[in-house]
């Protein structure tokens, strides 16, 4: 079913004049303090990947400890907690959020909506440098006395700021400061992305002609602008609790045999603030992934996306719903049973728009001409993995099932499937897909195949058995299981297996990094539109696109982003800026 109405609206005359671009004059303003969204995107991506590498190494160390307890003598219980905390926080906030929104958002939004740049280039530049500062503050926490915080990425008070939790001296302070800085930096970028999508599109680019990638990034940015405030407030208050001795989150308590000065605060309040941010955060990384995957599938299966309007509404609906489910992370914190009922219901309702998306992807593939290119492989891997993680999510959304599974490896397996591995697959797919646009060269195919298969199979080898360990009752955030009656001996073999898989997957990421740099020099030249894709970024006059993106004339958009294999057309794709009298009328 081709929704022809979308492609056939008349083009309105230009509504706004051309904007003046800022033209850099020196090398520094061109490549370092650049105000060009494309350069900023690359800066964001490289920084995010660099810090992500740290998180990856930390996951090796934790896995090593779980498989071979005691063989690396420097991993004591405190270190272990510090590793998983930093691993989790970096992966979620500093890698995924920054890469999807700061990286892909900056690169793709202006190009895909047909703009010359972001609406506020200067603010955009500040956004990156603020993000870099946040990363540096975070990294600094590895070098302060006491090391980084080990409170778990959820940073639950009261324990996160009390003696006994590693990094309570400085680590937690730097972590909170870094989050606050991150949020300020993100807000500057986020305002840009939203305004550019809403108000800066090319002629003919109606919202309902935008590629789903942009819909995903746009909705995720709106979520972030509304969800990060809760984390900001929580971080500020906890910082005061720690530094000034206020008691926002601190009840009166006895720690290490001493009555503390704190009293009267509400630890549950922090959990509400944290998860009011934390759950939308899942969708902040998932929605861009949804959008990008839709475009990857459509392009590499040479077929229009099935049910475009439904896909857009599903993205929006998921975005709205994601604000009313947060307390499903707090079933074990104790709450009124009716609240539990409410949050379980809303959680399950989200499954409906999500399932619609999955059906539509599958239906897009159904009669598609599937090219098993590397982006397509990763997109397929995403669908499988996301369904997998989504199904265990349905289990955990139910209070009675969640209570026994909470804080076990089952939860770790669930969220790695759904928000760890699945979005990472999309990031890889997207990098293979857009690398030619950014550099003018293809990534090496053979290394790509190796990367894909090892990562895909490896990810399942790591996280599938973890469900089982969770059902056995193996707790998460434990340095060592030791002798417990309910965890059988054989679980240890499984742990060894998982760790070997994790190290293998880790190693192959280094191959990917090598590919990124190697192909820069030696990759096959790609031309401007190697995938024969319809969206605007592939129609730029030059590749990589120059400053200002479009040369003299801004593109005019005549059709939606999914005109693949249109009957009667000369080519199997019609670019969005192709006037209607060409090919089909």
């Amino acid at each position, binding site marked *: *079913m081709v*929704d022809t*109405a979308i492609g056939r609206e008349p*083009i*309105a005359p*230009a*509504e*706004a004049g051309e*904007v*003046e671009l*800022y033209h850099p004059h020196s090398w520094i303003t061109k490549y370092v303090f650049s*105000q060009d969204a494309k350069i900023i995107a690359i800066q964001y991506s490289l920084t995010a990947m660099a810090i992500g590498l740290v998180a990856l190494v930390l996951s090796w160390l934790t896995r090593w400890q779980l498989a071979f307890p005691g063989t690396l003598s420097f991993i004591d219980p405190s270190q272990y907690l510090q590793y998983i905390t930093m691993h989790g926080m970096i992966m979620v906030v500093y890698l995924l959020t920054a890469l999807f929104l700061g990286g892909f958002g900056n690169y793709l939004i202006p190009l895909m909506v047909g703009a010359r740049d972001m*609406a*506020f*280039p*200067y*603010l955009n530049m500040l956004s990156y440098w603020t993000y870099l500062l946040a990363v540096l503050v975070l990294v600094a926490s590895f070098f302060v006395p006491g090391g980084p915080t080990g409170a778990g990425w959820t940073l639950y008070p009261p324990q996160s700021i009390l003696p006994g939790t590693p990094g309570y001296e400085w680590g937690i302070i730097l972590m909170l400061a870094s989050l606050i800085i991150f949020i300020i930096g993100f*807000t500057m970028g*986020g*305002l*840009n992305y*939203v*305004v550019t999508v*809403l*108000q*800066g*599109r*090319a*002629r*003919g*680019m*109606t*919202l*309902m002609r935008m590629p789903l990638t942009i819909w995903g990034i746009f909705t995720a940015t709106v979520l972030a*602008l*509304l969800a*990060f*405030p*809760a984390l*900001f*407030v*929580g971080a*500020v*208050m906890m910082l*005061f609790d720690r530094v*000034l*001795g*206020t*008691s*926002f989150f601190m009840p009166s308590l006895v720690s290490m045999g001493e009555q503390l*000065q704190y*009293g*009267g*605060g*509400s630890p549950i*309040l922090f959990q509400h*603030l944290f998860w*009011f941010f934390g759950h939308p955060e899942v969708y902040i990384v998932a929605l861009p992934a949804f959008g990008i995957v839709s475009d990857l599938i459509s392009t590499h299966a040479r077929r229009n996306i099935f049910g475009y309007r439904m896909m857009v509404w599903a993205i929006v609906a998921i975005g709205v719903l994601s604000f009313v489910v947060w307390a499903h992370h707090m079933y074990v914190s104790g709450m009124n049973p009716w609240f539990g009922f409410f949050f379980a219901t809303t959680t399950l309702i989200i499954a409906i728009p999500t399932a619609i998306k999955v059906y539509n992807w599958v239906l897009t593939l159904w009669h598609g001409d599937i090219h098993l290119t590397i982006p397509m492989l990763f997109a397929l891997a995403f669908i499988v993995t996301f369904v997998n993680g989504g199904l265990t999510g349905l289990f955990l959304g139910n209070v009675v099932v969640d209570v026994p599974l909470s804080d076990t490896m089952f939860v770790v397996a669930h969220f790695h499937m759904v928000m760890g591995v699945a979005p990472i697959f999309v990031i890889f797919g997207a990098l293979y897909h857009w690398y030619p646009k950014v550099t003018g060269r293809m990534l090496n195919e053979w290394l790509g195949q190796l990367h894909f298969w090892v990562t895909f199979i490896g990810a399942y080898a790591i996280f599938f058995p973890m469900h089982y360990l969770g059902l056995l009752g193996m707790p998460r955030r434990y340095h060592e299981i030791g002798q417990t009656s309910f965890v059988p001996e054989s679980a240890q073999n499984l742990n060894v297996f998982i760790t070997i898989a994790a190290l293998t997957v880790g190693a192959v990421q280094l191959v990917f990094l090598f590919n990124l740099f190697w192909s820069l020099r030696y990759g096959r030249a790609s031309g401007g539109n190697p995938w024969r894709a319809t969206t605007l970024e592939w129609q730029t006059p030059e590749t990589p696109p120059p400053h200002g993106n479009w040369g003299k004339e801004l593109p005019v958009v005549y059709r939606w982003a999914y005109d693949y294999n249109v009957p009667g057309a000369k080519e199997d794709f019609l670019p969005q800026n192709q006037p209607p009298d060409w090919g089909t009328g």
Partner: protein
Amino acid sequence: MAGPELTGAPLPESRLTRWRSIVSDWAADQRTFKHVSWGKSMMWIFLLSDTFIFSCFLLSYMTVRMSTTVPWPNPSEVFALHLFGQNIPLILIAIMTFVLITSSGTMAMAVNFAYRRNRRKTAILMLVTALLGAAFVGMQAYEWTKLIEEGVRPWKNPWGAPQFGSTFFMVTGFHGTHVTFGVIFLLIVARKVWRGDFDTGRRGFFTSRSGNYEIVEITGLYWHFVDLVWVLIFAFFYLW
């Protein structure tokens, strides 16, 4: 997809079609909000995000106020001033609120004159607004000093729940910071208006784009928002 348009049946003005036209208006070409500039739409979205920040602060304040078991200090005693031999409750705060609301009025007038390209009056009114804002911050500083002298600290106070001081300093401090930034912003824009930057199309440092008088209105949006937030803070901190 054959809609009712194609079947020739008369179009009922159903709720659905009305929704459809709203959607297609919003989804329209180039700009979702016609005649709204980039700067103004950015300010609106920023204010939406900021609303969430203030809401979280106020909700947190209410939560800790309800969760603590120690009695809450009585605001009409705490915030009273000793004037003319008697204690007048909330007098300072009433003046502060009055000053801030007046400043919203002068701001609105400044916007009006800006669109008439009356440089002198615009700049003067903006300066008056900034002055009123600075007066507000000054009185707030006085209030803080007074409370601190009476022994209120973020972690304790002589009259009851320590959360009183914590939330008070945090929320009024955060709001006061907003006012201070507003004052700085007002001064910068007033200077540009005075100099005639917006008549000559001079490029701004911050945006590297030439500005226009709309920036006065955008500043005004921010200023009114900060005012509105103050009214809420006033209600929740001083009247509850």
